[in-house]
């Protein structure tokens, strides 16, 4: 004889009761059964928990006690006194990132391409089976950053607008009137992914592209914010004129890593290979 699972009377009874209960529930509530099998809830409610009004966190991780910040950031020198360091309402979102951080922090992980190149000249000897190579130089080519930006409320729209103006300005020289007239576009510094990947890399912005998609909604910055603490800190900021910013857009930035002659003179390949020169921005 087979040893059936329902041999003892009490177990058989409870199992049957459970099975019957499930069947009765399904039979008694076919609506719930249909909705559940379709992935829906009564009333058309979402299964996702309610998202807060501001879902993108621009504030640097270090503010929450984390000493390492992984976010990719492009900034100017704090002592430069230019752009957002010179004040002004439009770029103020870039100074209110918390814990003294400033600059453009990419809200979503951007795509970054870095290319390290060693150039060799081909030496073509007559009647030779193989090419010989003469070393010319090495270089770090353009850093290409492709990043998505979203704006779901006025504060985020103002932040995106500030980022656009920052990169627009970073491709232009000081010309006409004002301070620093005659100077080329300023150096910016790239940080991201911790101690040994991008740490304070001095760069020039050679190209900035902002794509305004035709198939997304646009949100209005609509005037100076005021009254309550904002997502970046306690200070309020804003611009007085209305501007419309796409809720989803993409920026592409090309950076040229650049080093002064004085810095290059301190280069040491063994130290570089051991990561000792990362503090000086060598990559």
């Amino acid at each position, binding site marked *: 004889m087979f040893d059936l699972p329902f041999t003892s009377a009490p177990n058989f009874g409870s199992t049957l009761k459970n099975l019957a209960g499930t069947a009765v529930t399904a039979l008694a509530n076919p*609506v719930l059964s*249909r*909705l559940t*099998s*379709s*992935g*829906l*809830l*009564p*009333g*058309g*409610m*979402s*299964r996702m928990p309610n998202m807060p009004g501001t879902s993108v966190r621009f504030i640097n991780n270090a503010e929450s006690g984390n000493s390492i910040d992984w976010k990719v950031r492009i900034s100017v020198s704090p002592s430069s006194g230019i752009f957002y360091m010179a004040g002004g309402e439009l770029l103020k979102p870039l100074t209110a990132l918390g814990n003294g951080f400033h600059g453009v922090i990419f809200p979503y992980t951007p795509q970054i391409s870095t290319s390290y190149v060693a150039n060799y000249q081909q030496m073509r000897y007559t009647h030779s089976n193989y090419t010989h190579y003469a070393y010319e130089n090495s270089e770090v080519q353009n850093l290409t950053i492709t990043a998505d930006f979203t704006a779901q409320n006025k504060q985020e729209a103002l932040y995106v607008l500030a980022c656009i103006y920052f990169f627009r300005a970073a491709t232009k020289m000081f010309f006409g009137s004002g301070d620093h007239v005659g100077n080329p576009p300023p150096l910016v510094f790239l940080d991201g992914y911790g101690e040994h990947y991008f740490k304070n890399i001095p760069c020039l912005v050679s190209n900035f592209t902002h794509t305004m998609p035709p198939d997304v909604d646009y949100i209005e910055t609509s005037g100076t914010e005021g009254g309550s603490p904002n997502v970046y800190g306690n200070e309020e900021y804003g611009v007085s004129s209305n501007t419309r910013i796409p809720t989803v857009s993409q920026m592409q930035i090309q950076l040229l890593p650049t080093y002064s002659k004085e810095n290059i003179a301190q280069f040491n390949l063994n130290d570089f290979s051991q990561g000792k020169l990362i503090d000086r921005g060598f990559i």
Partner: protein
Amino acid sequence: MATEYSKLSPYYTTNKFGQFLDVLNQRPIPKNANDVKFTINAIYQFRPDLLANDLYGDPALWWVFVMRNPNVIRDPIFDFKSGKIIFVPTSETLTTALGI
């Protein structure tokens, strides 16, 4: 003049002349960020009334899906096919939009 159709009816705001209805005055269902994306399955194929009954407790709201998804559904019954992706309005949206 307004008809005696209930607030749940697509004809509630359509005028009536004698025993005849005027041209349909549509009752749009606004988009909402909380609207759930739903792929119509075999259970609800050609049955917007069943879906309305299950979601909102009243099959008379069968027409709200075509109003919320005008680019996906033209024929409220026979375009309600398995595999089509629609947005399902929440009951709060209907309460606000239809005054029910």
